[in-house]
């Protein structure tokens, strides 16, 4: 009887896992199908073709969008890691007037829904003349409350003795941060890096507001515009454009899933 329960459990789990994986497999297969095969259930096309990808590539600047997304996400992640750990270090290990206020405000930021500040931020960008610039995509995200709080939590645990001996050696705070704290904080930094990068990579509402020029669009934004504007024409082509976004993420996910899960689940709970 126990074995029957076991088998049923594994069967159920397999079925569940399939509902999560199968759509992606079907999507990949569909992108390789010629028009008359699109929509069939087959996972292997009878007449595989790269036409959908060729059409998609020709109709919209997806290569450029990939570059834009990579540039924006990398810049933001680097800034959040560097500036964020500076702030976290100050909050965790340095005593200064106003520290409690800053901490309280940082916690408060997490409670503010993005939609409240969306319009004023948009008007600010317009007034700064930053529409259709990388600045608009990057600057509002250079610092991140969730990241700062996560890093702070980690930095608080590092023994004071390490700092004291470093200070006695004449090290300044920044050197202490980057030569002592950073090597020790690698797991925390990795976690912050992942959710920051993924958050930026997947962000679409903000780019839809501040970027109109197709050459500056990020990948999910171009995908959306492409799918909506009818540029795709067929399901095979629109799914092909989705594949450009999905494949790098899935590849990274297959190798780093533990970090992805720890990172994005942890950040989501805190946020």
């Amino acid at each position: 009887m126990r074995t029957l329960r076991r088998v049923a459990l594994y069967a159920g789990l397999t079925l569940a896992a399939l509902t999560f994986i199968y759509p992606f497999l079907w999507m990949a297969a569909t992108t390789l199908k010629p028009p008359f095969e699109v929509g069939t259930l087959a996972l292997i096309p009878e007449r595989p073709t790269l036409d959908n990808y060729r059409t998609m590539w020709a109709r919209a600047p997806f290569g450029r969008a990939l570059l834009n997304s990579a540039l924006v996400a990398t810049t933001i992640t680097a800034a959040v890691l560097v500036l964020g750990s500076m702030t976290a270090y100050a909050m965790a290990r340095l005593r200064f007037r106003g520290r409690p206020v800053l901490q309280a405000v940082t916690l408060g930021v997490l409670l503010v829904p993005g939609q409240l500040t969306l319009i004023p931020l948009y008007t600010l960008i317009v007034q700064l003349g930053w529409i259709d610039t990388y600045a608009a995509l990057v600057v509002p995200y250079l610092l991140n409350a969730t990241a700062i709080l996560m890093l702070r939590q980690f930095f608080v645990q590092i023994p004071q003795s390490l700092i004291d001996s470093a200070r006695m050696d004449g090290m300044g705070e920044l050197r202490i941060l980057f030569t002592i704290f950073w090597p020790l904080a690698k797991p925390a930094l990795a976690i912050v890096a992942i959710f920051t990068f993924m958050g930026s990579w997947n962000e679409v509402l903000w780019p839809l507001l501040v970027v109109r020029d197709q050459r500056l669009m990020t990948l999910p934004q171009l995908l959306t515009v492409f799918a909506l504007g009818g540029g795709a024409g067929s399901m095979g082509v629109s799914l092909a454009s989705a594949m450009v976004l999905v494949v790098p993420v899935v590849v990274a996910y297959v190798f780093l899933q533990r970090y992805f899960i720890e990172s994005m689940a942890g950040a989501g709970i805190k946020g």
Partner: protein
Amino acid sequence: MRAEERSGWLLAMPYAVFLLAFVAYPIVFAVVLVFLHWDLVTSPSFAGLDNVRLLTHDGRFWRAVGNTFVFLAIHIPLQIVSALALAVALNRRLAFRAFWRAAFFLPVVISGAVVAVLWNALYATDVGLINRLLVRVGLAPVAWLTDPRTAMPAIAAMVTWKNVGFYVIIYLAGLQYIPRSAQEAIELEGATAWQRFRHLTLPLLLPQTILVLTLSTINGFQLFIEPYVMTGGGPLRRTYSIVLYLYTNAFFYQKMGYAATIGVALALMIGGVVAIQRRLLGSAEAR
């Protein structure tokens, strides 16, 4: 102390400036905008309570609010039940446990825009995967995204699919805290698995359930990319979401004051609903 104080300030300064410019100022200006008419081209003009009055009478806005509650009514129970079921199934020694977990979590890391495009294809009436499967087993195809009765439920199901892995992780974390000793003690007293679940596991998971409820609710109020990509808010405005309306007012109608008013209303609604949920469930927790 003075050197430490100075270093502290220097290191924290970028963030303080950032907060002022990109958090404090926008929050204050959002409230200011409620009382202005502004199209970003001409200078803003004072609107008094016009925007607020307009909002209270705006059929489109209230339809969007109603749609949100339809969404939540389907999404939340579905989310809790499926996440809980999967978490309980995973909470034991299993072969390939990491694989199942990774499979369930996969849609969480994928962009919402991609998921929307994918499910557009899955739900497509003629060539979509779901209808093809239904026909294959002898059932009639459904016009998922074009039938006003099924459009929002279809989106709710999709969002549940996308996020369930995330909530599985939350429930798994909660399940770790339930001591084996308590489970074994109850088993010894002759309780069935279901009784064990209902009287031991479920109550102990209440904090996680509250978290799932809160996060799903916030998520539901912030629905944007799915209706934007899949239905444009239709059919018959049945999938029109609040954020979609906010975006339309800002980007297409150029009504900054009104859009900001919608934003403030949304923030208040989210705050209100979450507070009510916590109040109701907080008292359950106390019991």
